């Protein structure tokens, strides 16, 4: 991507998060730095417990930071809002609402009039490919379809960024691959800035413009690896495997460190 004027969407500086769990003080993040450009697709990758989800939640405004600054388009983030849409691993759809009503949730909160809501929700239902399922309830949908609803629901509010927390983690391998392709399609149609948290190196290499490899706890940026491959990317191509290898190398060391820390704390 890139765009004409390179503007910063998300600017995270010296972010740290400390909390107390029982009697212990846990430093989840320490000095985390990241700049995400407008329209970029950035993946956060790291061992379990490295704080990648915490970063996402702080950007979303769902958690408080302990110190540092987090800015969205130059303005500091103080609380949650629909300008940062979020997609969850467990889908988090409202079971008592239909697909259409789920998508319209944020619009209702903003008191958008009914006719306008219908137009917007139809647009995004079509975008994510759920035409015909407007009046179904979440329990009637497969995992992949549910996540499409999740994505449409967040996008319907025209957020400035889309935050995605391992959104395909609950799906089976085939659906996952399909949804990754679908996500890229939606991304190219909307041009949103995406900050995507994942466990999976393959997924990160397939999707991201840049991959942020995080250290084990306390989390900070270990290495940022750009993925300059043109899309659509071939998972079996030599370049793909090359980037993958590079990322894995960084990651494995952190995994070892995380394991050692876990063992020593037991």
């Amino acid at each position, binding site marked *: 991507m890139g765009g004409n004027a390179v503007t910063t969407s998300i600017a995270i500086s010296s972010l740290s998060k400390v909390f107390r769990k029982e009697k212990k003080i846990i430093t989840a993040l320490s000095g985390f730095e990241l700049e995400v450009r407008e329209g970029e697709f950035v993946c956060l990758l790291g061992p379990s417990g490295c704080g990648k989800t915490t970063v996402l939640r702080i950007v979303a405004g769902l958690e408080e930071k302990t110190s540092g600054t987090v800015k969205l388009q130059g303005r500091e983030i103080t609380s949650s809002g629909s300008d940062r849409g*979020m997609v969850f691993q467990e889908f988090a759809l409202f079971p008592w609402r239909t697909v259409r009503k789920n998508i319209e*949730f944020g619009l209702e*909160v903003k008191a958008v009039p009914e006719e306008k809501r219908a137009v917007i929700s139809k647009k995004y239902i079509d975008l994510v490919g759920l035409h015909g399922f407007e009046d179904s309830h979440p329990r009637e949908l497969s995992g992949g379809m549910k996540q499409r609803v999740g994505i449409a629901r967040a996008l319907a509010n025209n957020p400035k960024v889309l935050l995605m927390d391992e959104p395909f983690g609950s799906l089976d391998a085939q659906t996952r691959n399909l949804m990754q392709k679908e996500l890229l399609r939606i991304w190219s149609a909307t041009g949103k800035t995406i900050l995507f948290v994942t466990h999976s190196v393959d997924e990160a290499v397939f999707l991201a413009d840049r991959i942020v490899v995080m250290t084990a706890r306390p989390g900070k940026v270990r290495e940022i690896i750009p993925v300059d491959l043109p899309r659509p990317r071939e998972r079996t191509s030599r370049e793909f495997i090359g980037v993958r290898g590079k990322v894995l190398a960084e990651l494995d060391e952190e995994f070892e460190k995380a394991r050692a820390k876990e063992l020593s704390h037991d």
Partner: protein
Amino acid sequence: MAGIVRSAYQLVSSNWRKVALGLASTAVFLLIWWLYAAWLRADWPFHGTPSGAWEYVPYPLEVLDAFYLSFWSHPVSGLYMGEHIYASLKRFFMGFILAFALAVPVGLLMGRFWTADAAGKPIVELIRPIPPIAWIPIFLVLLGVIRGPIAIVFLGIFFPILLNVQFGARSVDPTLIDAARTLGARRLDIFLKVVLPFTVPYLMTGVTVGLGIGWMCIVAAEMLGAAGGGVGYFIFVTAGNSQFPYTYAGMLMIGILSILTTGVAGLVERRVSKWVGMR
């Protein structure tokens, strides 16, 4: 209306085996009852000397007869069965509405705010285990025989609704709240659009349970108060006058009313759950 009849027909025809078994067991029950009554009276097919207690077990047909008569031609204490039913239902619904109106907000508050929970807990835990029936003598004196039963019903229905709503409100999936927040919802939106709908199925459970308890309460209160009309009163007075076929008819009426109210509650519960998408 035709739809209801059609679905009732469908219900019966698709479950005819269950219906048949139910009818058969009812018939057996009636037969045993009839035989017992005949035995007490030393009527055919028994003979001998009648037992002293024969009055207390009328024939099933006598009960049916009394049931029918009580609506049109045999008033008890000057009122027909329809009017007694109206009196009981009026009090029952007043107690229900009061309980509902109070238990839902309090339950929601206690489920979402630890302050409300801590404040309310001692009182709830103290009063809840006391059977509502124990309060009858007190309320009958404090509130009189007309309004006393309403308070008893209130107590009986209040706690099941409160506890179920509280539990439901407490159980709201936190991820749903997170999702709502990322969609721009503020506290009030979260309460109205997430907590409230989530709690509805729990509320319906509480209502169904409460209705059953409420009926027991109203009947007991009317019987003990013995002065304000109603189906419980009907039973008490006719028993006191040894008009036992009417007593049994009154008991039958209570069974019917209870089935009707819990049946309606169950229907509403299923409907609401489906509408809310949780079933």
